[in-house]
């Protein structure tokens, strides 16, 4: 609204940078108060998250998961649905993947196992979002409420299944057994040794493909057109003959499938077993990413990388700076979401003024 009059370079580049700087400034203040040097901390953060190739590949590894959860939330948002359930959908997606792997990893080769795992994750993620979608479409039950409920239920269900059926005998760790090597997502360091010994794997390309498909489908396809119309104006969508309840159910299925796919990177790409609470908040970060990235593929990608970098860099930061607890990263995440996501127009009036002065 306000920034309509601003040139594109200002809204697309200058403002986000200023906002990011503001978030960093507040962070610097906190770090200073904690008794550490903000500049050194920043250097560590940047070095560990992007400059160092191994760090960068960790950043991109985390980003791969975030892209999927970000996409999951975004596509539902396009239809006007606020899917808070990516967390649970990814968790259950992990279950589908794991069942497929446990059943077949001794009998099938890698080229069959990996697609099977991907499929298992997507199908189970979709299944977990089906009921909230169905209830929204047919019964009008608010999807925000049902998905929150389904997150809780997923957590309880998974706890039950893992503890009761999956822990190998004699093991303590509430996790399934590790899969056979054939069920591991190929890691990129096989081809690029410079990436170091990291779990960065081809799921990243899967994520990129998903982003591209998302972008094309949403903004260029007839179905995406109907999807957005449904999200913007349900009355008009009905007038246009769009089957709204079907649309809601389908988009929730896709959303759940995308969230489920997040598990592929986390499990098949890294741990190779299903463990309790392995999602670790990636679904909620997906909400932040979708909102900050404006549900635009490029925005989702950049936000996911930013959050990946924070996860990676922040971890090294707390390792090197004993006064900075790992929880500081959570604070920084919050500040970035606040400044870059919620107060995006903070500097628009100032920039407009500066531009006007020059005229």
């Amino acid at each position, binding site marked *: 609204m306000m920034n309509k009059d601003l040139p594109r370079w200002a809204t697309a580049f200058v403002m986000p940078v200023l906002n990011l700087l503001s978030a960093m400034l507040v962070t610097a203040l906190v770090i200073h108060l904690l008794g550490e040097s903000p500049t050194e901390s920043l250097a560590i953060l940047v070095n560990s998250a992007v400059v160092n190739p191994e760090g960068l590949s960790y950043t991109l590894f985390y980003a791969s998961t975030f892209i999927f959860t970000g996409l999951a939330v975004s596509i539902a948002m396009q239809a006007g649905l606020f899917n808070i359930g990516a967390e649970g959908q990814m968790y259950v997606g992990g279950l589908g993947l794991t069942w497929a792997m446990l059943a077949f990893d001794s009998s099938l080769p890698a080229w069959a196992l990996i697609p099977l795992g991907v499929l298992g994750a997507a199908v189970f993620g979709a299944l977990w979002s089906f009921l909230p979608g169905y209830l929204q479409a047919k019964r009008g039950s608010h999807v925000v409420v049902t998905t929150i409920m389904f997150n809780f239920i997923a957590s309880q269900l998974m706890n039950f299944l893992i503890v009761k059926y999956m822990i190998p005998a004699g093991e303590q760790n509430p996790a399934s057994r590790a899969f056979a090597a054939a069920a591991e997502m190929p890691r990129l360091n096989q081809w690029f040794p410079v990436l170091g010994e990291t779990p960065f794997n081809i799921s990243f390309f899967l994520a990129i493909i998903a982003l591209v498909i998302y972008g094309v489908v949403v903004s260029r396809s007839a179905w995406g057109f109907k999807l*957005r119309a449904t999200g913007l104006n349900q009355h008009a969508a009905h*007038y246009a003959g*769009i089957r709204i309840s*079907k649309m809601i159910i389908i988009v929730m299925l896709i959303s759940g499938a995308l969230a489920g796919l997040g598990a592929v990177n986390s499990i098949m790409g890294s741990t190779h077993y299903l463990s309790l609470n392995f999602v670790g908040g990636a679904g909620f970060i997906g909400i932040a990413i979708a909102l900050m990235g404006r549900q635009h593929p490029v925005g989702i990608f950049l936000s996911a990388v930013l959050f990946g970098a924070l996860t990676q860099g922040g971890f090294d930061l707390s390792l090197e700076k004993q006064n900075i607890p790992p929880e500081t990263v959570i604070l920084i995440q919050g500040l970035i979401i606040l400044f870059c996501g919620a107060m995006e127009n903070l500097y628009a009036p100032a920039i407009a003024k500066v531009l006007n002065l020059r005229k």
Partner: protein
Amino acid sequence: MQPAVEFRGISKHFGAVKANTDVSFTIAKGSIHGLVGENGAGKSTLMSILYGYYRADGGDILLDGQARRIHNSQEAIALGIGMVHQHFMLVENMTVLDNVMLGSEGGFKLNKNRARVERELRDICVRYRLDVDPLATIHDLSVGAQQRVEILKQIYRSANILILDEPTAVLTAQETESLFEILRLFKEQGKTIILITHKLQEILDITDTVTVMRAGRVIGAVPTAGTTKEDLANMMVGRPIENNLPRAPYNPGAPVLQVDGLQLLDDQGVKLLADIGFTLRAGEIVAVAGVSGNGQSELMEILSGMRLPSSGKLAFLGKPLPFEGRSDADGLPRTFRELGIGHVPEDRLRDGVIKAFSVMHNTIFGYQDKLKNRWGLLNFKAIAARCAELMKNFDVRPNNHDLRIGLLSGGNQQKVVIAREVLAQPKLMLVGQPTRGVDIGTIESIHTQLLKLRDEGVAILLVSVELEEVRALADRILVMCGGRITGELKIEEFDTTRIGLLMGGMHKS
């Protein structure tokens, strides 16, 4: 005598758009002052400035000779200015009483005042012969009744200067007449009234003076007594307006739509439509006249597939419309559209367009599946070309298909919707309130398009509360009241009084 309101050099721009440029004129106390102009001429903006809604870039407003800066609506209300907005400013899920009290509650506790205000409102309703139940909830009220609530609000606040922005756009002739009764009463009481309308007859009927605006400027201010519709139209549009549009002789073809025994019950079992039966033939325009809220909307919804009927036979080109075996209408409008039924919805902003989409996107809305390639992708190049042609043919202004349609004036939005539906070459066209809130120049062009469609052999069902419009377009007229068809006339039999009686429920006799 001291003028009640004086505008002196008011200017206002929105970005590059100059909504008002150096607007100056005076409004005499105790007069009814008309304000006319094309869509987007700047009428609403000027009134919004007077009401403190917008701040002018320059110029002064004088009230009773005193220069006033009005910063917000609160101050305007305090100065005795009241405004009935183009779009009703009512909270839908509240009662009339609460809506009236909002902003002038008279104390922190509502209950105590509620009783008092309710009494006062009932009193006002009697005095001004307003038919409103203070305890009714707004969303249960007809548009006309909502309009009366707006008036009631102003009377309750004893506004001395009353601004009415297109109050009659949604009213029937009778409702308009009773509104005017009230306005005359106001005038007698010495109140000043500013009336914006696109219906020039109303200007002639009730105003004392009229100001004409074009492109943000005042073109002229004349005493009503010395002017004619033609003069005004000329000033507004800059060219004469044709009243009797050319049309081919009435020569209906085969039946396109046959409706028999159509019924619609709501959740509580109340009959919204009863015993509707008629036949619509190719190449004719059948108008459904009636006070709004008498089942016309429901009829249109059923015929367009947006809603399921409770019972009845509906045949389109001899085949039954596919209502059978459905539990809801989800997706049905698409089937209807594919059969060849076009639909220009009554409420264009709610149903007809996606405000946040560009004009181009809106021109394929509902037809998107016809414009995709085998990958399911839309071919935007072809769509843009199609859109450009359509915008040219229907003279959509501004001619920029990337603009969000929400930024177009209502009239131009309407042209886009009609163009879109026409382009699909329907055999039956359902048209609801095509010219509501649209200026006379645009009305002319919309009417021309509809008549052209008829001449090409399309069957058109027109719902309109404007008898003028019905007379200009219809070949036959159905009158509806209380969910029933109370009468049918040929256009030659057009008779305002008779139609009025039928609209009021006087059965066929």
